[in-house]
């Protein structure tokens, strides 16, 4: 191990500079049961997630005794360990060894299922949540127009109208970088930067959001797995992604539908009535979730794609920034 103590406070247990194109790594003290591993700088870079999940996969496959689990996020992995069985030093050595042997980033092919989810836009559930917000929390919220957030979302991103906004949601796959906060809640980011909409958060946050609601804040898309408070702009509804009663075969192994590294794809677009029937069928056990279990994600091909579409992506970002500057923030 070549790391060194760098911190007088003892927070950083080891740090390693960038090596052979691999981002720098910092190991941060997180108590007697956890260790935080952080990669690179604190910037939004979706490609960091592929490295993180590639390493996470290697750690899981070669897990030493006492390493209980890993919690990957966009640029970090939190490790849960049993201090009676393994030392932090040994974990650092183990992770470094896995990181050293990780194939070059461009050659990574990571397991990544494709999960298709039907979506209803500006549906009755979303409208009810927004109506309650206007009635009980904030009557003059600039992000609510005609009882929806979608018109505001279109304006904020320089799009023609809510229909064009919906088409953007459906045009890109969404990379699920992490699950958490609530059971099964995905933190998903757009893979196609030409359709990467961004939105500010609610202010104040919403007291009530129905389970199944789809929303966006910043660049991140979330699906609310349970009825809860929430801060994201909301515009759609989908089938359940969490069922503690495990009533559908898709939930047989786990009450959580999604995993880190899944790609979410919103299709088909359905009406409220159609979605209602699908939700009922989920609980009857007859609904069939469309999941490609064996799909993989080729990072090299994706990087080539990013290069190809960069001029268009840049044009969209410029249009977006100009539009956002003219629109009030909540």
């Amino acid at each position, binding site marked *: 191990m070549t790391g060194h103590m760098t*911190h*007088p*406070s*003892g*927070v950083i247990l080891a740090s390693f500079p960038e090596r052979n194109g691999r981002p720098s790594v910092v190991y*941060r*003290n*997180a*108590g*007697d*049961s*956890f260790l*935080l591993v*952080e990669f690179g700088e*604190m*910037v*939004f870079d979706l490609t960091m997630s592929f490295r993180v999940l590639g390493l996470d996969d290697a750690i899981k496959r070669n897990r030493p005794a006492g390493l*209980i*689990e*890993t*919690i*990957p*996020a*966009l*640029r*970090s*992995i*939190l490790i*849960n360990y049993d*201090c*009676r069985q393994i030392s*932090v030093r040994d974990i650092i050595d183990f992770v470094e060894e896995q990181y050293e042997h990780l194939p070059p980033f461009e050659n990574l092919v990571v397991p990544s299922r494709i999960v298709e989810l039907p979506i209803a836009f500006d549906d009755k559930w979303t409208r009810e949540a927004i109506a309650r917000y206007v009635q009980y929390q904030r009557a003059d919220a600039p992000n609510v127009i005609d009882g929806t957030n979608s018109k505001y979302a279109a304006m904020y991103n320089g799009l023609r109208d809510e229909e064009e906004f919906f088409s953007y949601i459906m045009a890109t796959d969404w990379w699920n970088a*992490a*699950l*958490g*906060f*609530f*059971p*099964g*809640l995905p*933190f998903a980011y757009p893979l196609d930067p030409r359709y990467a909409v961004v939105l500010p958060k609610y202010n104040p946050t919403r007291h009530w959001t129905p389970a199944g609601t789809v929303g966006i804040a*910043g660049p991140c898309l979330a699906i609310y*797995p*349970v009825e809860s408070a929430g801060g994201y702009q909301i515009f759609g509804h989908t089938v359940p992604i*969490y069922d*503690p009663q495990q009533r559908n075969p898709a939930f047989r192994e*786990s*009450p*959580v539908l999604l*995993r*880190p590294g899944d790609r979410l794809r919103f299709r088909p677009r359905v009406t409220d009535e159609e979605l209602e029937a699908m939700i009922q069928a989920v609980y009857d056990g007859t609904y069939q979730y469309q999941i490609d279990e064996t799909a993989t994600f080729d990072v090299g091909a994706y990087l080539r794609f990013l290069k190809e579409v960069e001029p268009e992506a840049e044009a969209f970002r410029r249009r977006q920034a100009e539009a956002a500057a003219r629109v009030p923030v909540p």
Partner: protein
Amino acid sequence: MLEVRNGGFETTVQDYPGRIGMLSLGFAPAGPMDDYAFRFANVLVGNPPGAAGLEITAGGLVVAFHDERAIAICGADMGARLNGQPIELWRSYLVRAGDVLEFDYLQGAGFRTYLAVSGGIDVPPVLGSRATYLPGAIGGLEGRKLREGDRLPLGEPTTDPAQAAGRRVPASLVPAYPGYNEVWEVEATRGPQADPDYMTAEDMAFFFSHQWKLDAASNRTGYRLDIHKWQWARTSGGAGGGHPSNILDNGYPVGAVNVCGDQPIILCIDGPTLGGFICNAVVAKAAMWKLGQMVPGWSYIRFKEVTLDEAIALVKKQDETIHESNLERS
């Protein structure tokens, strides 16, 4: 079978260490808030220390027994009576079919008490644990707190109940809980986002010296402490958001002190697993039990800084303490 005649304020089935290995899907471990009392109650009745028992918050529970069992109550004094006769805490008793155990409400210091029954509560494990996780509505009995009319299946005792009864935890191992308006000293290590990168050394010195008031709006998901104007080492959260307490979302250690804007919140065993605020400290695993006996709205907390090695030593010492060989015949 254990028959619930009154569920009380909030009584749940818990086991220890709860639902482990599910953080990356968004499930907190759940389990007893005071695992010291919980484990000792199990040891007293001859169960493995982690067997499923009841967590009784504030009081009000009434249960009837339908067969011969050893029982023990450890934790806060709620004036428990067996068939109308007061019984002692931290001691095992023999109960027979028809016996009724009643809890009053809090009599003094402490907030939760634990009932262990020989054989353990035999509800079906969900995702590897019988612990009730209320935010996800799973585990325990139908993922909810107990109520009148519930019938809890019990397991087969591994030791003779008559032999297990009549033992006590020696007085030297029974913790004295600070009273209302008194200060709890809680061991904690610095967290992954402490000084000097996220907070200043002065911020951390304040954190480890201040007497923090525990807010009334505190529960198994989080313990809210008072608002403080931190100096902060950064002027903004960069890619994580506008406020210097913001970071790009990462996994949260169980027991972390999560600083959301100006407010520190201790993330308890039902807390969020991932999010975008800094964690400046992590409560030592061996000190987590203290949270379970603090009284929201009344207790004060002072964090005592320990090193990682000291925190690990505390875990090992606690495991040795909670052991059958330390019990006395009464």
